[in-house]
């Protein structure tokens, strides 16, 4: 077991900083890559939490119902500043998109006519997917080095991604097995990085 870093209570993140960071994240999130960007801002750039804390929330946000990025924002906000933090992160993340989507609806018929508009949005989305893939590498690298863990990862990917099976029964079937396999028992030694 890697010891978690000593819980030296970092000075509380100001609520306004939290709102501002998620406001920008919300506004710049295209094509589903925003979780990767949250990781960059919250872990890599600002050091507000560790990789391990982020990954633990990421799995929860994916599994629980709702929009993954909104769940992740609530998790991160809760972790950093409790209820007010969760509210600040969620409203911050939604303020920009809420405004832009309504403006876009008003201007829609003019926008589609712009040459290159569709290509530009496809390009932005492709880059966002690349960022997501990069986060995937980090997550896969951090997966405990056990056969069961890799099997769970692969089975989830194949069932949901390739076969398009509904997520709820897939997770309901795989999660208990995966958790049981990770249950602490005989001293098998430190098996994860």
């Amino acid at each position, binding site marked *: 077991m890697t010891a978690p870093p000593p819980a030296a209570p970092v000075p509380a993140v100001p609520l306004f900083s939290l709102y501002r960071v998620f406001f920008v994240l919300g506004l710049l999130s295209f094509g589903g890559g925003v979780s990767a960007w949250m990781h960059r801002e919250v872990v890599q750039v600002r050091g507000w939490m560790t990789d391990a804390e982020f*990954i633990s929330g990421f799995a929860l946000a994916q599994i629980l119902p709702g929009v993954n990025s909104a769940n992740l924002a609530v998790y991160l906000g809760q972790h950093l500043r409790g209820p007010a933090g969760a509210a600040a992160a969620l409203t911050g993340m939604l303020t920009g998109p809420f405004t832009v989507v309504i403006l876009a609806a008003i201007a829609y018929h003019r926008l589609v006519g712009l040459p290159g508009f569709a290509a530009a949005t496809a390009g932005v989305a492709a880059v966002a997917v690349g960022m997501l893939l990069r986060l995937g590498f980090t997550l896969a690298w951090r997966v405990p080095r056990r056969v069961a863990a890799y099997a769970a990862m692969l089975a989830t990917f194949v069932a949901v991604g390739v076969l398009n099976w509904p997520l709820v029964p897939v997770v309901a079937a795989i999660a208990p097995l995966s958790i049981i396999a990770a249950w602490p028992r005989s001293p098998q030694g430190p098996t994860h990085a």
Partner: protein
Amino acid sequence: MRDSELLALIAILAPLSIASIGGAASVYAPLQHQTVDVQHWLTGQEFIDLFAIARVTPGPGTMLATLIGWKVAGLAGALVATAALFLPATVLCYAVARVWNRYRGKPWHAAFEQGLAPIGAGLLFAGVLAILRIGAGGPLSWLTAAGVAGLLVWWPKLHPFALLIGGAVVFVALQWVTG
């Protein structure tokens, strides 16, 4: 009349919030059925247009619900629809996150964490595949995504905004060249 439309928005969207496991993709079908076939708030074409707007603007694809609210009852409709779609699921997530963080360090917590982490990773890769499949860019999107991922491994500090702008420029330029 307006109040009844706001209530109808809540009645349709709040259950979808809790049922939407895996994000936006799972709510599109029921949302279309309810707003077009049942309530007749929108025509099929209007629904497709709103869907496209939600796809090309920042934010989750479920901002589609905001647009439907806007269309049905103006600003009040947009606010109510957004809250109805986001609040139930995020309140649940908040409750779970609290419990989750309180028991950090317990052995069973570690088992849950280690057991769920590979599932989170698997779902992420599944999401990447799903987005690439419905993406409009074809093989170029796949290549770009792989290239960006590789570039970020090699150069982690590269700012995402530069990449996003670069992606848009490259796609527009290629469209110009290939006609």
